[in-house]
Structures are given as C-alpha cells and as structure tokens.
C-alpha cells in the first residue's frame, strides 16, 4: 500500500486520511507495544500515544526510511517509556498464562499457536522478544531493527542469535512432541 498520498492528505488537513493510516498500521503497532508491555491496557495506551506522536511529528517524516520503520521506532520507544513508568506490581500476566489447548478437531488453531508463542516470548526479556518479533513477524532487516531500537548492528545480531535459541528451547520444552504437528496442522 502506498502511504505517501495518505500522509500528504493528512498534512493538508484531511483527518480521514490519518484514520486510514491508523487502520493500516494499528495491528502492527499494537503488537509491538504488547510485546514490550505484555499487558492489554498498557499496550492500548502506548498504541494511542504512538499514533498521536506520529501525527504531531508527521511533517518531520522525511521519507528516507520506510514509514512502517519510522512508526515502529516511535512505538518501540513509547512502549519502553511506558514500561519504565509503570508500577512494578501492575503487570498483568493474563496473556502469559498457559491455558489448556483447545480441543483439536482440524489441527492446531491460530489461537493455540499464538498462545504458545506468547508464553515462550513472555519468558524472555522484552527487548529480545521485540527483536524476534521485528525479525520474524514484521520481517524487518537487521539495519531496520537498528533504526527502530537504537541498538548497534552487532548488538542486534548477538541478541537475535541468543534469543532465537532461547525461544526454541522454551517452545520445544512447552510443546514437547507436538512442536511439528503444530506447524504442519496449520500449514
């Protein structure tokens, strides 16, 4: 989707254009915030703040980087900032608790995959989980992850290597023999 016309229309004062931008990217931004904050309420608030900040600074978006990368960068920093402000006892672990998998009829459902993955990512450091998500879900390159997180390229590569291994250990430990069935059923 070409985002440039929507940005131009937003800057010209058309709010419907920005609503379209929000609808296009809200899933991605919400996922980034949720990956860092692991709490629905905080993730919603951080998502709202991200889009408001992006709107305020839209005139400063030069088009040098992809719009999504620019937006992820705001989302990631906003979520990290929310996480620092949050009281330590306010973390909800609802999304991290392991629920029994749904009864298998047509194989493993998307919800089950999401639950297992969230649980495994929840056992990891927020930054590591976010980097894995940027790499595998949003399919960002290492250079783009550098732009989003502000880490160095070598740091991103080391974190990717270590967190990938840790995620696989967590998943294989959780799923035991069902690991491959999970993916084969879904394919």
């Amino acid at each position: 989707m070409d985002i440039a016309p929507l940005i131009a229309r937003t800057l010209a004062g058309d709010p419907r254009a920005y609503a379209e931008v929000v609808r296009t990217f809200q899933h991605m931004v919400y996922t980034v915030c949720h990956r860092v904050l692991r709490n629905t309420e905080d993730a919603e608030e951080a998502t709202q703040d991200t889009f408001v900040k992006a709107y305020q600074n839209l005139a400063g978006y030069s088009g040098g980087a992809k719009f999504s990368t620019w937006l992820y960068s705001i989302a990631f920093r906003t979520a990290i900032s929310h996480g620092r402000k949050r009281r330590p006892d306010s973390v909800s672990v609802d999304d991290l608790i392991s629920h029994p998998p749904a009864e298998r009829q047509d194989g493993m459902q998307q919800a089950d995959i999401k639950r297992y993955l969230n649980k495994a990512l929840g056992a990891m450091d927020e930054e590591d989980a976010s980097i894995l998500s940027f790499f595998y879900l949003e399919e960002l390159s290492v250079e783009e992850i550098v732009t989003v997180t502000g880490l160095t390229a070598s740091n991103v590569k080391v974190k990717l290597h270590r967190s990938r291994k840790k995620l696989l250990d967590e998943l294989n430990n959780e799923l035991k023999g069902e690991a491959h069935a999970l993916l084969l059923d879904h394919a």
Partner: protein
Amino acid sequence: MPELSENDLPKLFQAAGHQAPPRDLTDRIMARVAVTPIMRRDSAKPLISKRAWLLLGAGFLALTAAVALLPGDADQATGPATKLFSMLEETTSQLRLPTGSWPIWSAMAVGSMLLFTWIDGTLMSSMRRSAA
C-alpha cells in the same frame, strides 16, 4: 517427533500473526488526534543555518590567521596577499572600529559565533525531544 528448528520460526510467527487491538481503538486514537496540532518543522527553522555559521566562522578564522601571520610592512612585500591586506588595512583604517588587537577581536567573534551555534543546536534538539 522432531523438535522445532530455526527454519520453523518464520512460519510460526507468521502463523501466530499480530495481536488484535480492540475494535474501537481507531476511534479513540482519532478523538485524541482531533485535538492535536501537527508540528510544522519550518516554523522552528533557525534563521541562519549551521553551515552558514560555520562558513562565517571559518572566514573569520582565516582572516585572523592571515592578519597574525603575514608580514605587516606593505613596503617590503609585493605578493598579491600582501597587497590585498594592505588594501584591507586602508579600508579598515577609515572605519570606526573598537580599539584593540584584530586577532583578539576576531577570535572573540569566532568564539561568539560558535557559542551561538551550539546554543541554537541545543535548543533545536531539546524542542525535538519534547515534541517526541
């Protein structure tokens, strides 16, 4: 049954997909956006660019170095630089300039410009930080 490997991770993430935000999230965001102004970058542009300040500073430095290092006796020197500076000296002698040493005045001017450039840059970056 084989375990998951690195090659399975892209498929796993794609299969899990994104987290679903609440349905009214767009409306809530747009309600906040409606009362938020867009910051226009050009409204906060410095009057004199950083490059212009640096060029001015470099010019003053060159002038200072020339005045300090080149021979001051125009009768004994015939080079183009000497002629240029003797002309400059004639011109400046007709100006009502503050008394004192030229190199010191130039160094103070360069120092002031560098100070103002630094203040300008600091103010701009703090404005950007507060906006973000």
